[in-house]
């Protein structure tokens, strides 16, 4: 991992187009400003971890029964009552 020392107000530039600036340092919290082209997704790492955990929880190991949606709004598929 590349480790750089930066002071408040200083930046690093990635690939000539992504600017990461240390905006403020308060105790153990660092405020970071990121300027990147709109096609570069920027997220907190926790978002990926959250989705990863959710995927792991969602995986079903056998063909379990599906829930039934309660009075679902709009676009409810037509079902005929027996």
């Amino acid at each position, binding site marked *: 991992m590349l480790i750089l020392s930066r002071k408040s107000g200083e930046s690093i530039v990635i690939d000539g187009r992504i600017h990461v600036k240390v905006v403020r340092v308060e105790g153990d919290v660092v405020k970071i400003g990121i300027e990147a082209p*709109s*096609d570069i*997704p920027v*997220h907190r790492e926790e*978002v*990926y971890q*959250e*989705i*990863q*955990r*959710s*995927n*792991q*929880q*969602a*995986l*079903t*190991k*056998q*063909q*379990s029964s*599906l*829930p*039934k*949606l*309660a*009075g*679902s*709004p*709009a*676009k*409810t*598929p037509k079902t005929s009552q027996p």
Partner: protein
Amino acid sequence: MNAVDKIDMETLATPTLNEVRLPTGLLGFEHIKDYVLLANPAEQPFAWLQVKDDVALAFIVIDPYIAVPEYKPNLPQLDIENLGIQNPDDALLLSIVTVHGNNRATMNLKGPIVINRRTHIGKQIVIANASDYSVQHPLPVAAV
């Protein structure tokens, strides 16, 4: 590329199988790339995204708009281009469902799976406005 049947979950009359390839896998399951999307009219609005090489492993998926008609995921343009999606009708959007016991189920609105209906290639995309949505958005499940 050979023509493939266009995936359409809404007009299914019979159980259908569609092979789906997710070249980057799902987050946490990057090594699993080949799936079969199995939709049975009797089980709508749910469908199964089954692991092709292990039929015992599957994800339950749903068209998120059925439960949240106002859902507005902001999909990065680069992902859309890489998937070869040229107009909105090409895209099939699915949310992964988690079943928590008998009467609670949620769906992931932060990371939908976007599939090109024509090529059957897809990707789990972290939407740009992920902070507006939950990974565990509650589904209105009827008590069994």
